[in-house]
Protein backbone atom coordinates (compact mmCIF):
# COMPACT_ATOMS: atom_id res chain seq x y z
CA UNK A 1 0.00 0.00 0.00
CA UNK A 2 2.72 2.44 0.92
CA UNK A 3 3.89 2.96 -2.59
CA UNK A 4 4.90 6.58 -2.16
CA UNK A 5 8.60 7.13 -1.74
CA UNK A 6 10.97 10.02 -1.34
CA UNK A 7 8.35 12.40 -0.13
CA UNK A 8 9.75 15.35 1.81
CA UNK A 9 8.79 15.01 5.48
CA UNK A 10 7.82 18.61 5.99
CA UNK A 11 6.05 21.03 3.79
CA UNK A 12 7.55 24.48 3.64
CA UNK A 13 4.47 26.62 3.47
CA UNK A 14 1.75 26.79 6.02
CA UNK A 15 -1.43 27.96 4.50
CA UNK A 16 -3.14 31.07 5.69
CA UNK A 17 -6.25 30.11 7.52
CA UNK A 18 -9.73 30.96 6.53
CA UNK A 19 -11.87 32.02 9.43
CA UNK A 20 -14.80 34.01 8.19
CA UNK A 21 -16.81 35.82 10.83
CA UNK A 22 -19.92 37.66 9.82
CA UNK A 23 -21.81 40.30 11.78
CA UNK A 24 -19.41 40.24 14.68
CA UNK A 25 -20.66 42.87 17.07
CA UNK A 26 -18.92 44.47 20.02
CA UNK A 27 -18.21 42.23 22.96
CA UNK A 28 -21.25 41.89 25.17
CA UNK A 29 -21.45 41.13 28.85
CA UNK A 30 -24.38 38.92 27.91
CA UNK A 31 -22.31 37.02 25.38
CA UNK A 32 -22.15 36.95 21.62
CA UNK A 33 -25.20 38.63 20.12
CA UNK A 34 -28.11 36.47 19.05
CA UNK A 35 -28.21 36.00 15.29
CA UNK A 36 -24.44 36.16 14.87
CA UNK A 37 -23.22 33.67 12.28
CA UNK A 38 -19.92 32.00 13.11
CA UNK A 39 -18.29 30.26 10.18
CA UNK A 40 -15.38 27.88 10.23
CA UNK A 41 -13.32 26.26 7.51
CA UNK A 42 -10.48 23.84 8.10
CA UNK A 43 -7.53 23.86 5.74
CA UNK A 44 -5.57 20.72 4.99
CA UNK A 45 -2.22 20.55 3.27
CA UNK A 46 -0.73 17.30 2.17
CA UNK A 47 1.74 15.79 -0.21
CA UNK A 48 0.72 13.39 -2.90
CA UNK A 49 3.11 12.00 -5.47
CA UNK A 50 5.66 14.63 -4.54
CA UNK A 51 3.34 17.59 -4.90
CA UNK A 52 2.04 19.69 -2.02
CA UNK A 53 -1.66 20.33 -2.24
CA UNK A 54 -3.93 22.57 -0.20
CA UNK A 55 -7.50 21.59 0.39
CA UNK A 56 -10.31 23.46 2.15
CA UNK A 57 -12.99 21.72 4.02
CA UNK A 58 -16.57 22.76 3.60
CA UNK A 59 -17.53 25.79 5.65
CA UNK A 60 -19.71 25.14 8.65
CA UNK A 61 -21.74 27.96 10.11
CA UNK A 62 -23.43 28.02 13.44
CA UNK A 63 -25.89 30.71 14.41
CA UNK A 64 -25.95 32.12 17.90
CA UNK A 65 -29.34 31.57 19.48
CA UNK A 66 -31.01 34.06 21.80
CA UNK A 67 -30.69 33.58 25.52
CA UNK A 68 -33.71 34.88 27.39
CA UNK A 69 -32.46 36.42 30.60
CA UNK A 70 -33.42 39.34 32.78
CA UNK A 71 -32.20 41.00 35.96
CA UNK A 72 -34.32 43.22 38.21
CA UNK A 73 -32.61 45.29 40.89
CA UNK A 74 -34.18 47.61 43.46
CA UNK A 75 -32.19 50.81 43.68
CA UNK A 76 -32.49 51.50 47.40
CA UNK A 77 -32.86 48.85 50.04
CA UNK A 78 -35.27 50.89 52.16
CA UNK A 79 -37.37 53.93 51.43
CA UNK A 80 -38.59 56.11 54.30
CA UNK A 81 -42.28 57.01 54.13
CA UNK A 82 -44.91 58.63 56.30
CA UNK A 83 -48.04 56.84 57.39
CA UNK A 84 -50.82 57.92 55.03
CA UNK A 85 -48.38 59.13 52.41
CA UNK A 86 -49.74 59.23 48.88
CA UNK A 87 -47.51 58.37 45.92
CA UNK A 88 -44.49 56.80 47.58
CA UNK A 89 -42.27 55.39 44.82
CA UNK A 90 -39.69 52.64 44.67
CA UNK A 91 -37.07 52.72 41.91
CA UNK A 92 -35.96 49.58 40.08
CA UNK A 93 -33.83 48.82 37.07
CA UNK A 94 -34.70 46.08 34.62
CA UNK A 95 -31.75 44.83 32.53
CA UNK A 96 -31.84 42.53 29.52
CA UNK A 97 -29.05 40.13 30.50
CA UNK A 98 -29.73 37.99 27.44
CA UNK A 99 -27.91 38.39 24.12
CA UNK A 100 -30.67 39.66 21.89
CA UNK A 101 -33.32 42.35 21.70
CA UNK A 102 -36.26 41.34 23.85
CA UNK A 103 -39.40 42.88 25.30
CA UNK A 104 -40.36 42.36 28.90
CA UNK A 105 -43.71 42.17 30.64
CA UNK A 106 -43.78 43.99 33.98
CA UNK A 107 -45.91 43.30 37.01
CA UNK A 108 -45.88 44.15 40.70
CA UNK A 109 -46.69 42.40 43.96
CA UNK A 110 -47.47 44.21 47.20
CA UNK A 111 -48.72 41.27 49.23
CA UNK A 112 -45.96 40.32 51.64
CA UNK A 113 -47.97 40.59 54.85
CA UNK A 114 -47.50 36.86 55.51
CA UNK A 115 -43.84 37.57 56.24
CA UNK A 116 -43.42 38.18 59.99
CA UNK A 117 -41.08 41.09 59.23
CA UNK A 118 -43.79 42.88 57.27
CA UNK A 119 -46.36 45.10 59.01
CA UNK A 120 -48.48 46.38 56.15
CA UNK A 121 -49.20 45.97 52.45
CA UNK A 122 -48.71 49.13 50.41
CA UNK A 123 -51.73 50.10 48.31
CA UNK A 124 -50.87 50.30 44.62
CA UNK A 125 -51.91 53.36 42.73
CA UNK A 126 -53.61 52.93 39.35
CA UNK A 127 -51.52 52.68 37.30
CA UNK A 128 -48.86 51.48 39.67
CA UNK A 129 -45.88 51.05 37.31
CA UNK A 130 -44.18 53.94 35.56
CA UNK A 131 -41.13 54.43 33.41
CA UNK A 132 -38.75 56.90 35.03
CA UNK A 133 -38.97 58.81 31.78
CA UNK A 134 -37.18 61.91 33.01
CA UNK A 135 -34.46 59.91 34.70
CA UNK A 136 -34.99 61.73 37.98
CA UNK A 137 -35.29 58.61 40.09
CA UNK A 138 -38.46 60.11 41.56
CA UNK A 139 -42.06 59.84 40.54
CA UNK A 140 -42.69 63.02 38.62
CA UNK A 141 -45.35 64.36 36.23
CA UNK A 142 -43.31 63.56 33.13
CA UNK A 143 -43.08 59.84 33.89
CA UNK A 144 -44.94 57.55 31.47
CA UNK A 145 -47.34 55.00 32.91
CA UNK A 146 -46.71 51.36 31.95
CA UNK A 147 -49.49 49.31 30.44
CA UNK A 148 -48.92 45.57 30.05
CA UNK A 149 -48.91 44.49 26.42
CA UNK A 150 -49.08 48.09 25.23
CA UNK A 151 -45.69 49.57 26.01
CA UNK A 152 -43.68 46.62 27.27
CA UNK A 153 -40.08 47.86 27.32
CA UNK A 154 -37.98 46.53 24.44
CA UNK A 155 -34.36 46.26 25.53
CA UNK A 156 -31.29 45.47 23.46
CA UNK A 157 -28.78 43.05 24.95
CA UNK A 158 -27.31 44.58 28.12
CA UNK A 159 -29.72 47.52 27.97
CA UNK A 160 -31.50 48.69 31.14
CA UNK A 161 -34.61 50.71 31.89
CA UNK A 162 -35.54 52.50 35.12
CA UNK A 163 -38.97 51.59 36.48
CA UNK A 164 -40.97 53.07 39.36
CA UNK A 165 -43.67 51.42 41.41
CA UNK A 166 -45.96 54.01 42.96
CA UNK A 167 -47.89 53.06 46.08
CA UNK A 168 -49.95 54.74 48.76
CA UNK A 169 -49.02 54.09 52.37
CA UNK A 170 -51.94 53.26 54.68
CA UNK A 171 -52.72 55.66 57.51
CA UNK A 172 -52.46 54.69 61.15
CA UNK A 173 -49.11 52.93 60.95
CA UNK A 174 -46.45 53.05 63.63
CA UNK A 175 -42.95 54.34 63.45
CA UNK A 176 -40.69 51.58 62.06
CA UNK A 177 -43.47 49.61 60.35
CA UNK A 178 -42.37 47.85 57.17
CA UNK A 179 -44.14 47.18 53.88
CA UNK A 180 -42.81 45.62 50.70
CA UNK A 181 -43.41 45.92 47.01
CA UNK A 182 -41.86 43.76 44.28
CA UNK A 183 -41.33 44.40 40.58
CA UNK A 184 -41.45 41.36 38.30
CA UNK A 185 -40.11 41.32 34.74
CA UNK A 186 -40.62 38.43 32.32
CA UNK A 187 -39.36 37.99 28.74
CA UNK A 188 -42.37 38.10 26.43
CA UNK A 189 -40.89 35.46 24.12
CA UNK A 190 -41.18 32.98 26.94
CA UNK A 191 -39.88 31.90 30.30
CA UNK A 192 -39.52 28.71 32.27
CA UNK A 193 -36.85 26.25 33.24
CA UNK A 194 -33.37 27.19 31.96
CA UNK A 195 -32.83 25.46 28.64
CA UNK A 196 -36.45 25.66 27.55
CA UNK A 197 -36.30 26.43 23.83
CA UNK A 198 -38.66 28.45 21.66
CA UNK A 199 -37.87 27.48 18.08
CA UNK A 200 -37.55 30.41 15.70
CA UNK A 201 -38.72 32.93 18.29
CA UNK A 202 -35.47 34.89 18.61
CA UNK A 203 -34.32 37.93 16.61
CA UNK A 204 -34.18 37.15 12.90
CA UNK A 205 -35.84 33.79 13.45
CA UNK A 206 -33.08 32.19 15.52
CA UNK A 207 -34.10 29.93 18.35
CA UNK A 208 -34.66 31.48 21.76
CA UNK A 209 -33.52 29.55 24.81
CA UNK A 210 -34.34 30.35 28.43
CA UNK A 211 -31.19 31.28 30.36
CA UNK A 212 -30.18 30.86 33.98
CA UNK A 213 -32.62 33.52 35.22
CA UNK A 214 -35.54 31.51 33.89
CA UNK A 215 -36.26 34.65 31.80
CA UNK A 216 -38.19 36.05 34.74
CA UNK A 217 -36.99 37.80 37.84
CA UNK A 218 -38.30 40.01 40.60
CA UNK A 219 -36.79 42.36 43.14
CA UNK A 220 -38.45 43.53 46.33
CA UNK A 221 -38.22 47.04 47.70
CA UNK A 222 -39.12 48.02 51.23
CA UNK A 223 -40.93 50.92 52.79
CA UNK A 224 -40.23 51.83 56.40
CA UNK A 225 -42.52 54.23 58.20
CA UNK A 226 -40.21 56.93 59.48
CA UNK A 227 -42.12 59.45 61.50
CA UNK A 228 -40.15 62.49 62.47
CA UNK A 229 -41.30 65.31 64.73
CA UNK A 230 -39.81 68.75 64.98
CA UNK A 231 -40.49 70.54 68.24
CA UNK A 232 -39.60 74.20 68.73
CA UNK A 233 -39.58 75.78 72.17
CA UNK A 234 -39.15 79.53 72.37
CA UNK A 235 -38.01 81.42 75.46
CA UNK A 236 -37.23 85.08 76.12
CA UNK A 237 -34.84 86.94 78.40
CA UNK A 238 -35.38 90.66 79.01
CA UNK A 239 -32.57 93.03 79.90
CA UNK A 240 -33.55 96.61 80.73
CA UNK A 241 -31.14 99.56 80.45
CA UNK A 242 -30.90 99.71 84.22
CA UNK A 243 -29.48 96.28 84.80
CA UNK A 244 -32.88 94.76 85.55
CA UNK A 245 -35.30 92.60 83.65
CA UNK A 246 -38.22 95.00 83.14
CA UNK A 247 -39.73 95.15 79.65
CA UNK A 248 -39.52 98.90 79.36
CA UNK A 249 -38.77 100.92 76.22
CA UNK A 250 -35.10 100.52 75.40
CA UNK A 251 -34.93 97.09 77.02
CA UNK A 252 -33.73 94.18 74.86
CA UNK A 253 -35.40 90.81 74.54
CA UNK A 254 -33.20 87.86 73.57
CA UNK A 255 -35.26 85.05 72.11
CA UNK A 256 -33.98 81.47 72.08
CA UNK A 257 -35.70 78.88 69.90
CA UNK A 258 -34.67 75.30 70.70
CA UNK A 259 -35.54 72.82 67.94
CA UNK A 260 -35.55 69.09 68.68
CA UNK A 261 -35.88 66.28 66.13
CA UNK A 262 -37.51 63.08 67.36
CA UNK A 263 -38.17 59.92 65.36
CA UNK A 264 -36.45 57.67 62.87
CA UNK A 265 -36.96 59.78 59.79
CA UNK A 266 -35.42 62.84 58.23
CA UNK A 267 -37.03 66.25 58.36
CA UNK A 268 -36.06 67.37 54.89
CA UNK A 269 -35.45 71.04 54.26
CA UNK A 270 -36.53 72.10 57.73
CA UNK A 271 -36.64 75.86 58.26
CA UNK A 272 -37.78 78.16 61.03
CA UNK A 273 -39.45 81.50 60.43
CA UNK A 274 -40.18 83.84 63.33
CA UNK A 275 -41.67 87.32 62.83
CA UNK A 276 -40.15 90.20 64.79
CA UNK A 277 -42.81 91.12 67.41
CA UNK A 278 -44.73 94.36 66.97
CA UNK A 279 -43.31 97.38 68.78
CA UNK A 280 -39.85 95.90 68.77
CA UNK A 281 -36.89 96.40 66.48
CA UNK A 282 -34.47 93.67 65.47
CA UNK A 283 -30.98 94.26 66.83
CA UNK A 284 -28.64 94.12 63.84
CA UNK A 285 -26.29 91.14 63.61
CA UNK A 286 -27.79 89.39 66.63
CA UNK A 287 -28.88 86.24 64.80
CA UNK A 288 -27.13 83.02 65.81
CA UNK A 289 -27.50 79.34 65.01
CA UNK A 290 -25.91 76.96 67.53
CA UNK A 291 -23.88 79.92 68.91
CA UNK A 292 -22.49 80.75 65.47
CA UNK A 293 -23.29 84.16 64.02
CA UNK A 294 -25.43 84.42 60.89
CA UNK A 295 -25.43 87.58 58.83
CA UNK A 296 -28.63 89.56 58.42
CA UNK A 297 -28.25 89.64 54.66
CA UNK A 298 -29.70 87.05 52.28
CA UNK A 299 -26.51 85.30 51.33
CA UNK A 300 -24.85 81.92 51.43
CA UNK A 301 -25.35 81.22 55.11
CA UNK A 302 -28.26 79.44 56.75
CA UNK A 303 -30.26 82.47 57.89
CA UNK A 304 -31.21 86.11 57.48
CA UNK A 305 -33.57 88.89 58.42
CA UNK A 306 -36.23 88.84 55.74
CA UNK A 307 -37.47 92.43 55.47
CA UNK A 308 -39.44 91.97 52.27
CA UNK A 309 -42.71 92.11 54.21
CA UNK A 310 -43.10 92.16 57.97
CA UNK A 311 -39.55 91.66 59.28
CA UNK A 312 -39.01 87.96 59.95
CA UNK A 313 -36.10 85.88 61.12
CA UNK A 314 -35.56 82.89 58.79
CA UNK A 315 -33.17 80.02 59.55
CA UNK A 316 -32.83 77.00 57.29
CA UNK A 317 -31.81 73.88 59.19
CA UNK A 318 -31.70 71.70 56.08
CA UNK A 319 -32.17 67.93 56.35
CA UNK A 320 -32.14 67.11 60.03
CA UNK A 321 -32.52 63.84 61.91
CA UNK A 322 -32.56 62.86 65.52
CA UNK A 323 -28.83 62.33 65.20
CA UNK A 324 -28.41 65.95 64.21
CA UNK A 325 -29.09 66.91 67.84
CA UNK A 326 -30.72 70.00 69.26
CA UNK A 327 -30.64 73.10 67.05
CA UNK A 328 -30.56 76.42 68.90
CA UNK A 329 -31.50 79.72 67.22
CA UNK A 330 -31.02 83.01 69.02
CA UNK A 331 -31.75 86.64 68.14
CA UNK A 332 -32.35 89.92 69.97
CA UNK A 333 -34.92 92.70 69.59
CA UNK A 334 -35.24 96.04 71.32
CA UNK A 335 -38.49 97.39 72.72
CA UNK A 336 -39.42 100.68 71.07
Amino acid at each position, binding site marked *: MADVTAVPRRIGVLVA*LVGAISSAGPAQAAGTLAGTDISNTAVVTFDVAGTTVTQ*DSNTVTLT*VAETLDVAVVVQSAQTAVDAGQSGAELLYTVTNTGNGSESFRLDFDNDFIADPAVDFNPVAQTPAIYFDTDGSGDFSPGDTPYSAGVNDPVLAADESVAILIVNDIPAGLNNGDIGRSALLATATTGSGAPGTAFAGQGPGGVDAVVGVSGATQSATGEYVVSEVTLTAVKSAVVADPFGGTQPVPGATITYTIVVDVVGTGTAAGASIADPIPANTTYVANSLQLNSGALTDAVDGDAGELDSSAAPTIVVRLGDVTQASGTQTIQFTVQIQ
Partner: protein
Amino acid sequence: MKTAQTLFAIATLGFAGLAANAADAGDLEVKTVVQKEAEVVAADGSKSVELVAADAVVPGEEVIYTVTFTNVSDKATDNIVISNPIPSQLTYVYGSAFGPGTTITFSVDGGQTFGSPETLVVVDGDVERAATTEDFTNIRWEVQNPLNVGQRGFARFRARLN
Protein backbone atom coordinates in the same frame (compact mmCIF):
# COMPACT_ATOMS: atom_id res chain seq x y z
CA MET B 1 1.40 32.61 -3.79
CA LYS B 2 0.31 29.33 -5.25
CA THR B 3 -1.28 27.96 -2.10
CA ALA B 4 -3.58 30.92 -1.63
CA GLN B 5 -4.78 30.71 -5.21
CA THR B 6 -5.52 27.07 -4.84
CA LEU B 7 -7.33 27.73 -1.64
CA PHE B 8 -9.70 30.24 -3.21
CA ALA B 9 -10.33 28.07 -6.20
CA ILE B 10 -11.30 25.16 -4.04
CA ALA B 11 -13.37 27.20 -1.67
CA THR B 12 -15.82 28.03 -4.41
CA LEU B 13 -16.44 24.37 -5.11
CA GLY B 14 -17.79 23.60 -1.70
CA PHE B 15 -18.07 20.23 -0.13
CA ALA B 16 -20.35 18.61 -2.72
CA GLY B 17 -17.88 19.22 -5.51
CA LEU B 18 -14.90 17.58 -3.88
CA ALA B 19 -15.39 14.08 -5.19
CA ALA B 20 -15.38 15.31 -8.78
CA ASN B 21 -12.13 17.18 -8.24
CA ALA B 22 -9.97 14.10 -8.03
CA ALA B 23 -7.19 15.34 -10.25
CA ASP B 24 -5.54 17.59 -7.71
CA ALA B 25 -6.85 18.74 -4.34
CA GLY B 26 -9.64 16.21 -4.55
CA ASP B 27 -7.22 13.51 -3.53
CA LEU B 28 -8.39 14.15 0.02
CA GLU B 29 -12.03 14.51 0.89
CA VAL B 30 -12.18 16.95 3.79
CA LYS B 31 -15.32 17.56 5.77
CA THR B 32 -16.01 19.69 8.80
CA VAL B 33 -19.01 19.36 11.07
CA VAL B 34 -19.97 21.37 14.14
CA GLN B 35 -21.98 19.62 16.80
CA LYS B 36 -22.91 19.90 20.42
CA GLU B 37 -23.75 17.45 23.14
CA ALA B 38 -27.38 16.86 23.96
CA GLU B 39 -28.98 14.61 26.50
CA VAL B 40 -31.21 12.14 24.75
CA VAL B 41 -33.90 10.25 26.60
CA ALA B 42 -34.64 6.85 25.12
CA ALA B 43 -38.03 5.19 25.05
CA ASP B 44 -37.17 3.23 28.17
CA GLY B 45 -36.34 6.43 30.02
CA SER B 46 -32.59 5.90 29.99
CA LYS B 47 -30.52 8.97 29.25
CA SER B 48 -27.46 9.28 27.12
CA VAL B 49 -25.39 12.09 25.71
CA GLU B 50 -25.22 12.27 21.95
CA LEU B 51 -23.70 14.65 19.47
CA VAL B 52 -26.33 16.58 17.59
CA ALA B 53 -26.11 19.33 14.99
CA ALA B 54 -25.27 22.68 16.60
CA ASP B 55 -28.31 24.51 15.33
CA ALA B 56 -29.03 26.73 18.30
CA VAL B 57 -26.04 27.62 20.40
CA VAL B 58 -26.19 30.08 23.29
CA PRO B 59 -23.33 31.86 25.04
CA GLY B 60 -21.59 29.54 27.48
CA GLU B 61 -22.45 26.46 25.50
CA GLU B 62 -19.73 24.22 24.07
CA VAL B 63 -19.56 23.03 20.49
CA ILE B 64 -17.38 20.34 18.95
CA TYR B 65 -15.71 20.79 15.58
CA THR B 66 -14.70 17.61 13.81
CA VAL B 67 -12.65 17.58 10.61
CA THR B 68 -12.58 14.24 8.80
CA PHE B 69 -10.24 13.60 5.90
CA THR B 70 -10.39 10.59 3.62
CA ASN B 71 -7.89 9.59 0.98
CA VAL B 72 -10.12 9.19 -2.06
CA SER B 73 -7.22 9.12 -4.53
CA ASP B 74 -5.35 6.10 -5.81
CA LYS B 75 -2.11 7.18 -4.14
CA ALA B 76 -0.98 7.50 -0.56
CA THR B 77 -0.86 11.01 0.85
CA ASP B 78 1.75 12.17 3.30
CA ASN B 79 2.58 15.12 5.51
CA ILE B 80 -1.06 15.88 6.11
CA VAL B 81 -1.48 19.06 8.16
CA ILE B 82 -4.90 20.22 9.29
CA SER B 83 -5.22 23.82 10.33
CA ASN B 84 -8.29 25.27 11.91
CA PRO B 85 -8.87 28.80 13.10
CA ILE B 86 -10.76 29.24 16.35
CA PRO B 87 -13.55 31.69 15.56
CA SER B 88 -13.14 34.86 17.62
CA GLN B 89 -16.46 34.42 19.41
CA LEU B 90 -15.36 31.03 20.70
CA THR B 91 -12.83 30.04 23.33
CA TYR B 92 -10.92 26.81 22.95
CA VAL B 93 -11.60 24.30 25.73
CA TYR B 94 -8.29 23.33 27.30
CA GLY B 95 -7.13 19.83 26.47
CA SER B 96 -9.95 19.15 24.04
CA ALA B 97 -7.99 19.00 20.78
CA PHE B 98 -7.67 15.41 19.63
CA GLY B 99 -6.63 13.52 16.58
CA PRO B 100 -5.37 9.92 16.34
CA GLY B 101 -1.74 9.83 15.30
CA THR B 102 -1.32 13.59 15.18
CA THR B 103 0.95 16.15 16.79
CA ILE B 104 -1.16 19.07 17.96
CA THR B 105 0.14 22.61 18.32
CA PHE B 106 -1.52 25.97 18.86
CA SER B 107 -1.09 29.55 17.70
CA VAL B 108 -1.73 32.81 19.48
CA ASP B 109 -0.85 35.03 16.51
CA GLY B 110 -3.41 34.10 13.92
CA GLY B 111 -1.47 31.12 12.61
CA GLN B 112 1.93 32.74 12.04
CA THR B 113 3.65 30.49 14.58
CA PHE B 114 2.64 27.35 16.42
CA GLY B 115 3.75 25.69 19.63
CA SER B 116 2.58 23.54 22.48
CA PRO B 117 0.33 25.39 25.00
CA GLU B 118 2.97 25.70 27.72
CA THR B 119 5.43 27.40 25.36
CA LEU B 120 3.06 30.09 24.09
CA VAL B 121 3.31 33.65 25.37
CA VAL B 122 1.44 36.83 24.56
CA VAL B 123 2.35 40.44 25.24
CA ASP B 124 -0.15 42.55 27.17
CA GLY B 125 1.05 46.11 26.91
CA ASP B 126 4.72 45.76 27.83
CA VAL B 127 4.28 42.60 29.87
CA GLU B 128 4.86 39.16 28.48
CA ARG B 129 2.72 36.45 30.04
CA ALA B 130 1.84 32.84 29.47
CA ALA B 131 -0.95 32.38 26.97
CA THR B 132 -4.34 31.12 28.10
CA THR B 133 -6.89 29.31 26.02
CA GLU B 134 -8.61 32.65 25.44
CA ASP B 135 -5.55 33.73 23.49
CA PHE B 136 -5.50 30.71 21.19
CA THR B 137 -6.33 31.64 17.60
CA ASN B 138 -5.54 28.48 15.62
CA ILE B 139 -5.01 24.80 16.08
CA ARG B 140 -2.80 22.63 13.88
CA TRP B 141 -2.74 18.86 13.62
CA GLU B 142 0.26 17.26 11.90
CA VAL B 143 -0.52 13.68 10.93
CA GLN B 144 2.47 11.53 11.73
CA ASN B 145 2.02 8.72 9.19
CA PRO B 146 1.03 8.62 5.53
CA LEU B 147 -2.66 8.13 4.80
CA ASN B 148 -3.13 5.25 2.43
CA VAL B 149 -5.78 4.91 -0.23
CA GLY B 150 -9.22 4.70 1.32
CA GLN B 151 -8.01 5.49 4.82
CA ARG B 152 -9.65 8.12 6.97
CA GLY B 153 -8.48 10.27 9.83
CA PHE B 154 -10.02 12.97 11.93
CA ALA B 155 -9.19 15.99 14.05
CA ARG B 156 -11.44 17.40 16.71
CA PHE B 157 -11.66 20.22 19.24
CA ARG B 158 -14.12 21.73 21.59
CA ALA B 159 -14.84 25.45 22.03
CA ARG B 160 -17.17 27.50 24.20
CA LEU B 161 -19.29 30.31 22.80
CA ASN B 162 -18.38 33.61 24.44
